[in-house]
Every structure is written in C-alpha cells, then in structure tokens.
C-alpha cells in the first residue's frame, strides 16, 4: 500500500513536468517520457489495436509507467538505509510487485477492461458467441470450454508472471546476503557482494522486460476482445 502510493505520487509529480509544454524538439525529461510513449503507441499498441489505439492508449501508458516505477523503486534499499541512519527496524520500502495482491489487482484491471471493451462494442451475447471460431458442431462445446478456461486463466498467468519474476530476484539477493551472515568471513563477503552486484543488474533488466511483457500482453488481450476475428 505504501509503495503503491509512493509510486503514484512520484508519477503524478514527474510526468506532468515532462508533458507540460509542447516543444517541436523535446529535450530532457520530456524527451525521455515522450520517446517511451511514442514507442508504446507505435510498436505495441498500433499493430495490435489498429483504429482503437487512441481509445486504449492511456491505459497502456499508465500500466507501463506504473509497473516500471514500482519495479524500479523496489531496487532502492530504503529499508536498509533507514536502519543505517536511525537504527530502527522497519519495513518501509520494498518491491510492491512481490505482493500477489497488487499484481493480481493489476491483472484484474486488465481482465475487466478487456471484457468490458468487448461487451461494449458487440453486446453481451454476440461477444460471447465470438469466443469460438467456426468449427463443426460436434466439437463446438469443447472448443467453447477451452476458450472460456483460457480467458479465465490469462489474468492469473499475468499476475503470477510479474509476481514470481520480481520475487525470485529479491529472494536471490536475500540468499546472497544470508550467505554473508552464515559464514561471517571476509572472502565470502567479497564474493557475495560481487554476486549481488551482478544479480542486481540482471534484476534491473528483468524489471524492464517484465513491465514490457505485461503491457504487451494486456494490449494483445484487448485487441483479441475488440476485433471481430472469428466472424
């Protein structure tokens, strides 16, 4: 709850700073945010969504920047810094995506948005009949059940993918630090710190990749719901 609020406050403060003036050649923070937004709109949303890109692009941008801020804030060790400064044990900072409820909530937002968009465009019965392609009548119930099951499993897969990737990175870091606590020797500490630095680089890469995958898959699910591909 705390980290989600902190991420929301940071985003609400920084993004309007970057999006304020319209310049012909953006530079600095505006260039950074705009280049990410243009990349998401042209490479991720437009191939999948087509004409409805402008309808859903704010959701795509919000999801990307929010999960990216959550993951990057999780790499900052505010808990240990607070302990070093004041000497009090606390649980102040951490990666919010290591909480299955937060990633589950994000996946549920995607789930509700995809089906609400599909139902709003086609109406409830027609949208439900779009779920199955044209197959011969005997196997139609089986295909229908498979499509319903896959539509229900998708948000779980989204949530668990993000949750387990970030959690695995943090568990590896905690294990390496625990090695220093167990062995209590300088050699192990040097090797362990080198391993922690390497794993932190990998974790940064995983943070970016997982936000991109979450955003890409959300866009793909929305495009599957709103385009009449099985007609």
């Amino acid at each position, binding site marked *: 709850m705390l980290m989600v609020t902190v991420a929301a406050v940071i985003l609400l403060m920084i993004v309007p700073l970057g999006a304020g003036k319209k310049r012909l050649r953006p530079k600095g923070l505006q260039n950074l945010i705009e280049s990410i937004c243009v990349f998401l709109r042209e490479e991720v949303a437009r191939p999948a969504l087509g004409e409805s890109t402008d309808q859903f692009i704010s959701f795509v941008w919000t999801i990307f920047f929010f999960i990216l801020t959550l993951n990057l804030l999780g790499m900052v060790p505010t808990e240990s810094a607070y302990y070093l400064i004041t000497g009090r044990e606390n649980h102040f900072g951490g990666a919010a995506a290591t909480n299955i409820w937060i990633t589950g909530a994000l996946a549920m937002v995607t789930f509700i948005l995809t089906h609400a968009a599909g139902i709003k465009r086609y109406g409830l019965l027609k949208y439900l009949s779009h779920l199955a392609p044209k197959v011969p009548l005997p196997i139609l119930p089986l295909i229908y059940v498979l499509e319903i099951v896959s539509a229900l499993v998708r948000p779980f897969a989204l949530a668990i993918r993000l949750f387990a*990737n970030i959690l695995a990175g943090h568990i590896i870091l905690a294990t390496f630090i625990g090695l220093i606590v167990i062995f209590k020797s300088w050699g192990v500490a040097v090797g362990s710190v080198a391993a922690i630095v390497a794993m932190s680089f990998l974790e940064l890469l995983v943070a970016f990749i997982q936000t991109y995958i979450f955003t890409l898959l959300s866009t793909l699910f929305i495009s599957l719901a709103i385009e009449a591909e099985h007609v």
Partner: protein
Amino acid sequence: MLAAGEPGSNSLAIFGAVFGCGMAIIGASIGIGFIGGKAAEAIARQPQIGGRILTAMIIAAALIEGLTFFALIICFLAIFWMKG
C-alpha cells in the same frame, strides 16, 4: 520427525515439490535454449533485422518463464502452505 509416508508428516510432499521444481526447470531451459539457438541462427542469416529478432526472442523467453514460475508457485504451495 516422522518417517516419509506416515500420516501427519509432509516430507513426501516436500520431496515431490522439490523434484517437480527441478523438472519444471528442465522444461524451461530446453525451451528457452531452443529459442535462443534459433534466434542466433536467424540473426546470422539476416543481420540487418537483428533488433526485431532480439525483441521476439525476449518476448518468447519471458512467456516461457512465466509458465515456469507458475509451476514454481505450485511447488511453493506444497512446501510452505499445506497443512501438516
């Protein structure tokens, strides 16, 4: 400590969970290794679209890893969150 298989001990569950975790890793590493190899071959054939091939490879690897972590969470379930 009770013997494995006796009612009231979960040592068999822990063994099964850890073994399942190892098998899930085998599947994932074969899959991702295959994708990496094919991506390297494709880049060797046509170096100018190396960027797009890299993107496709990263996406496929992340999807496979997602499924692996699914299996991993089920293993965690058996170790930490099962009663008795």
